[in-house]
Each structure stands twice: as structure tokens, then as C-alpha cells.
């Protein structure tokens, strides 16, 4: 089990003949992803490492029944590529491209929603469900099949965290990079909801950074709806205000988006925040044990007690 992608994922690669597209199409195929098609206008009826290339996404879907798309086209064409995928009936679109117009993204975001599709990214490393499927650029050799869900706004920081987990023998159910832009298709809450519902996920790692209030909103969501242990890391504690730290979304403006506020909100929701990615595996172990002990404590001594008492207690809490 996993979230968003699995063995049934049939992938079409938009921009497959480009420098990044061709390299990663091959790597995804090598990892075991079912890459059924590629699209580059004008390159139809050719093949790339055995993958059939079509002129349009519509044709690719008709011929191969692709259900997921990944976009590697340059930023100027990325917006159009998302519309094309959604109009061809694709329900999951992952946009790797960096440097996309935020204003254009607002329009695309609404369109994708209206069509009942999901967009991940842009400006993201994609996602991987170890042992099942990889869509994007996360290196396949650093992951390990297991039960930790990872969601992140960053790219290489995600690899660092995944590597820390794998090095400690802690495998992952799925790792999702949601991207560092201001307007993104899938946010922390969407992923937390999916991990909460995913039976193979036992604990969740959430990697945030300065800018916006997604981490604060996620903290509120966790407190209310997430029953699994969550551990976090927030990058940018030393970042100055008013400066964009690489990602378009990583900017502290008007005193909001500070790391310290995000850490406070997460701690308040019972989520410990690591000071370094290498501290994450240890924190997860602690949290898993804590949750198990709590479950035991709430179960064990109450068994002989009268049921009505237990019921009253839960209603009081509300």
C-alpha cells in the first residue's frame, strides 16, 4: 500500500525527449514504474528506450490508457502541459518544472480542481512509493520499502531525511515532494489525509520551511484528525526577512512565515520538531513508542470498568 501512486500507475511522460525528460523516463522505468507513453509534439511514432512517443497526451491516453502524467517541459510550456493532461482525462498530474508563473498557477489550480483531478507541484521532486512506483526525480537508491510516510516542500532536504530513515533501517510507504512554490496543487493537509487513511503508513514525517502558513494549518489539522505519530523538521530558522531563499514560497514577509511560529504551532499539536534531519529517525521511534504506550494505557486498566463510565468521559472531552 501507498498513497497516490502504486503498481497500477500507468505513466505518461510529457517532454520525454527533452534533456531531463529522457533521463528520468529511463530512470523511472529502470526503477520499475510502468511508463506506458511519452509525449513530445512532432516526435510522435518514435520510441525512447522502448517507450512509445506520441504527439499529444490525448493520443497517448487513448492508445495506452495512461492514468498519471509527469511533466518535465520548460517553464514557459508547463502551464499548457498541465491543461493538456487534465483535458485528456488524466486524474493525477505531477509537474516537476521549476520557474512557473504563480499567477498562471492560480488559474490552473482552479481548473484542475473543477475537473476533479489532482496536481502535485510545480517545482517539486515528485513522489515515490518504494517497491511500487516512482514518478519524478527522487533517487530510487535511497528509499526502502516500509511504513513511514514522508511529505516535504523541498527536494534535496527530502533526500537527506529519507536517507536518514533508510540508514536507520526505517523504510517508507510513500515519499511526496509537494514543491516550494507559492501556489501548489497538493498541500500538506492533502498528504496528511492520505497518509492517515493509508493502512501501510504507521508514522509520518513532515518537512516544512519558512514562508506562508501551510505548516500552521497542517498543525491544526493534525491535532484534529491525525491519529498516527507525526514528526517534523522546519528549514530556515536563520533566514532573514524579506529575502527569497531559493524557493518562490520561502520568504518571510511582514513578520509572517517565520520558522519559530511554525515550530510553536507544531509542538502545540503534539508534533516534535527535529533540529537536524539526522535527528528524525530517533524522534519517530520515541513517538511510535509513546503512542503505543498511550494506546496500551487507555486499553488495559479500563477493561474491567463499566462501559458507561468510559462513554461519559469521551463525551466530556468534546
Amino acid at each position: 500500500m501507498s498513497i497516490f501512486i502504486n503498481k497500477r500507475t500507468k505513466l505518461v511522460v510529457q517532454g520525454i525527449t527533452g534533456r531531463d525528460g529522457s533521463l528520468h523516463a529511463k530512470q523511472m522505468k529502470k526503477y520499475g514504474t510502468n511508463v506506458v507513453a511519452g509525449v513530445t509534439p512532432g516526435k510522435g511514432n518514435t520510441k525512447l528506450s522502448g517507450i512509445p512517443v506520441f504527439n499529444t497526451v490525448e493520443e497517448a491516453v487513448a492508445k495506452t490508457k495512461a492514468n498519471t502524467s509527469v511533466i518535465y517541459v520548460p517553464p514557459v510550456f508547463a502551464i499548457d502541459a498541465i491543461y493538456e493532461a487534465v483535458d485528456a482525462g488524466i486524474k493525477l498530474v505531477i509537474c516537476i518544472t521549476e520557474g512557473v508563473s504563480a499567477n498562471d498557477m492560480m488559474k490552473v489550480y482552479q481548473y484542475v480542481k473543477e475537473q476533479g483531478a489532482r496536481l502535485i507541484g510545480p517545482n517539486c521532486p515528485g513522489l515515490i512509493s518504494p517497491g511500487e512506483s516512482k514518478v519524478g526525480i527522487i533517487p530510487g537508491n535511497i528509499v526502502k520499502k516500509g511504513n513511514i510516510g514522508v511529505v516535504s516542500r523541498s527536494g534535496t532536504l527530502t533526500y537527506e531525511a529519507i536517507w536518514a530513515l533508510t540508514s536507520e533501517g526505517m523504510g517508507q510507504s510513500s515519499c511526496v515532494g509537494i514543491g516550494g512554490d507559492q501556489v501548489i496543487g497538493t498541500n500538506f493537509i492533502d498528504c496528511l489525509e492520505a497518509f492517515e487513511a493509508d493502512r501501510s503508513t504507521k508514522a509520518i514525517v513532515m518537512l516544512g520551511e519558512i514562508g506562508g502558513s501551510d505548516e500552521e494549518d497542517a498543525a491544526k489539522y493534525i491535532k484534529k484528525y491525525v491519529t498516527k505519530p507525526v514528526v517534523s523538521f522546519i528549514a530556515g530558522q536563520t533566514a532573514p526577512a524579506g529575502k527569497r531563499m531559493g524557493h518562490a514560497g520561502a520568504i518571510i514577509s511582514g513578520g509572517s512565515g517565520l520558522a519559530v511560529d511554525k515550530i510553536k504551532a507544531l509542538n502545540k499539536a503534539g508534533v516534535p520538531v527535529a533540529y537536524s534531519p539526522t535527528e528524525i529517525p530517533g524522534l519517530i521511534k520515541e513517538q511510535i513508542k509513546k503512542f503505543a504506550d498511550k494506546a496500551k494505557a487507555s486499553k488495559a486498566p479500563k477493561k474491567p470498568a463499566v462501559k458507561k463510565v468510559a462513554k461519559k468521559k469521551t463525551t466530556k472531552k468534546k
Partner: protein
Amino acid sequence: MKIHEYQAKQIFAAAGIVVPEGDIATTPIEAYDLAVKYNKPVMVKSQVHVGGRGKAGGIKYAENAEAAKVLATQILGMDIKGLTVKKVLVTVAEDIISESYVGIILDRITKRPVIMVSAAGGVDIEEVAAKTPEKIFKLAVDPIAGLKPFQARNLAYKLYRDITQVRKAANIIMKLYKSFWESDASLVEINPLITNTGGDVIALDAKMNIDDNCLFRQADIEAMRDLDAEDSSEIAARKADLSFVKLDGSIGCIVNGAGLAMATMDLVKRYGAEPANFLDIGGSSNPQKVVDAVNIILSDANVKAILINIFGGITRCDDVANGIVEAIKQLQPEVPIVVRLTGTNEKEAAKILKKVNLPSEDTLDKVVKKAIELAGIEI
């Protein structure tokens, strides 16, 4: 990218929004000449990329040309929140009857452009927003359907009662919204939007931030970039296609990926030192980028050690290693360098690095500690 008030006013004026007559001066004499030309009392306004200019003494009223000259002498060269004033806008002063606020931002939460208006505009708008948020009216506009005239009118009614002024303000809101999209702005702001004794509605100030991702199609705005307002190392970094922010510490950092770069800086601080910069070499594997990165960091005299932290995914460690060898050959840095190259092609990278005999570490925590030790800072 931020642009100055006078530049935003040029864009507003071209969009049909009424702004007071004005022009830029870089010397007191120029300010004097402009005031003589307008033959009216003027405002002398510092042009720096920071808010709160008025409160810092960077905006002053001049009764006549002589006063404008004196004020320009004071304001030019003034330091406002760390920025030196190099230009002033000399603009005709207005008789202000009321001050309102109108702004449009890209809202990350609703993922829509949000228009904000308030009848309590002026220098204290941030305080209004914090203490009496009910005085600010917001409208999240459907980005596909666009802003409708009735919506602009409804917002204008929050500012004025007189229908003529409502119509004028609604017209300005419509034009501002159009300008937001056409300029690929992430923020446009008029604070204050004033009414004068003649009943006119005028944009007395103008602020505009442009999405960096769209500058390729905004040549006119890119040309407005004020190189004087930026640090020279940041300009060099942009030319080298590196994402760079200069800071005040002593540990130079070269990292791939923005999140990891920030995490590395945070660890530098946690282990008792301060980072000298944020630098993301990006996902490409061009060795020249490493040479440029080392060069830019070496230009900062505060740097006592350089830390190179690469987690290879798209970026290949051997390419980075080649860049490091090249940088050492070309630049012969006296500052110690410590590296950590992990991920794609790390073994090849280790072989290449043997040529230059640099200290290397295998984890993030270790490489940070080593850099601080090499910088001679006691932990």
C-alpha cells in the same frame, strides 16, 4: 523583484490610474529644478525597497523649491533600515481630505488574488490590520472569471459614500486588477489612495512586487531593476545563475537545493557559528557553477571557512568534485574548505577530490562541525 514607487507609478499611470505629477532626482539641484518646474509645494520621497519610509524621515513636505533642495540634501544619502537613499521622487503635494488603502495580493491559502480595501489607509495600515482587522474588507477573486465591475463597486462603497468618488475608486480597482495580471505582479498596493479638496481620487503612493519567474516576459519591468539597491555579490550570483543571499556570518555555504541549504545554515547556527550566506547551486551539474560559487563567497572578507554540502540526485557529485578541483586551481583560496558529497556518483567524486586533498565528511552534522572547527570558532 521589487520596483520603486516612481516605477510603479509609471505602470499605474500607463494603466490609466491617476497619480500626482512627479519625477526622479539624484541630486539636490535636480530636486530644486523639478520643484521650480511644478511651481507648487512638493513632496520629497526617498526611493528605497523598504516600508516605513515616512516614519524613518524619508518623506518630507517642501513649501517651495528652496525647501525641496534642502530636504533632498538631507534625504539623499540617508540610511533607511540599512539601505542608502540614492534617488528621491519629487512630486506635487496634494491637499488630503481622506486616506484609504487598496491592495491586491496573491493569496497562498485561497490560491486566488485577494483585493483588500480599507477606509483607514495611511502610514498605520499594518497596525489597523493587526488591531482592527474588521476595518479591512477582502475579496478573493475567481482568477478564471476575473473581477466584475459590481465587485469593484461594492469594494469602493466601503471607502466612499459619494457616488462620483465611488465610481472613480471602482475604476481604479478595476485598472489595478488588470495591472496585477498584465505585470505578473504578486503584490500591488496603493497606500494611501486619497481624495483631495477638488474631489479627485488619486494614488498618492504605489508599490509593486513582480514574480521573478515571469521576468522573461516582462522586459520593460526587468529593465527597471535597480542595481544600486542590491549587494554586488548578489548581482554576481544572479549573473552566474545561482540563488544567493548574503548574510553576516563567517561560514560560507555552498549547497544544492533551497531546503537543504537552509537546513545547513540552521545547523551552522545551532553548532555555534553564523552562516555567511544562502547559496543554492541548483539541480544542474555544471562544474563552472561551483567555481562561480566559490569565487562569490571568497569575495566576502568575513568568510573564515567554506562548507560544501551536496546531496546528489539530479546533481552529480563527480561534476561538483570537478568544479571544486577547478575552483581551487583557478582561485587558490586561503580559506579552508570542507566538503560532503553524497548520492549520485559519490565514489567517482571521492577519487577526483583526492587530487586536491580536501577534508571531507560523510554526514550533514559532521561537515557543519568540521567547517566551524576549521574557521577557528570555539564551539
